[in-house]
């Protein structure tokens, strides 16, 4: 079974430019999560999708961050414009909604903003 796929794995951009990350969850998983992991910290939830609906985006900085999951399968997280403080690893996870919320994580995208 294929796991959660994320791309790109690494991204280096200059500040003030836009950047986007893509995630394809495990087939059949209706719930999709985006997390941000700062250096030396645990991941923090940015947004949660149930199918195509964003049901929890309270931690998403909406002035510069946006996300979409148009067909309820893959998802894109965008930052525009990027700031130095956005440097982090962006993790995508998916869950079937069963098994007590066991989430499966992708390898992450490591973003460096210069």
């Amino acid at each position, binding site marked *: 079974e294929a796991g959660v796929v994320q791309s790109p794995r690494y991204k280096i951009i200059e500040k003030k430019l836009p950047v986007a990350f893509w995630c394809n969850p495990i087939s059949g998983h209706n*719930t999709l*999560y985006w*997390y941000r992991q700062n250096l*030396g*910290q*645990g*991941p*923090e*939830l940015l947004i*949660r999708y*149930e199918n195509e609906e964003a*049901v*929890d985006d309270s931690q998403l900085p909406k002035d510069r961050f946006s996300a979409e999951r148009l067909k309820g399968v893959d998802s894109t997280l965008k930052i525009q414009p990027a700031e130095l403080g956005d440097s982090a690893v962006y*993790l995508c*996870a998916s*869950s079937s*909604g069963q*098994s*007590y*919320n*066991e*989430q*499966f*994580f*992708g*390898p*992450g995208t490591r973003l460096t903003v210069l």
Partner: protein
Amino acid sequence: AQSVTQLDSHVSVSEGTPVLLRCNYSSSYSPSLFWYVQHPNKGLQLLLKYTSAATLVKGINGFEAEFKKSETSFHLTKPSAHMSDAAEYFCVVSEYSSGGGADGLTFGKGTHLIIQP
């Protein structure tokens, strides 16, 4: 609201000796609790999970954890450390929102496990 406190940012043990990584949680409801491991430059991997069944939970690679409601603890243990266990370990709590569906996971800050040869 839920929260997790990992009591040690770093733990160093000798190979072949026991491992203890401490975790306390706070939750308004009956939580699900997890331990995840993250090796350098690799993704998060689930070690084990507590889901209100047995309080002693066995996971992969010889790890286990005991849920103690009276102490609000979920400490991770392993009888004998191996060099390959060196990694970052995260204690995680999850609740279900009142509107249904599972909330995002709340992670502790992590414990860096160092294995001395």
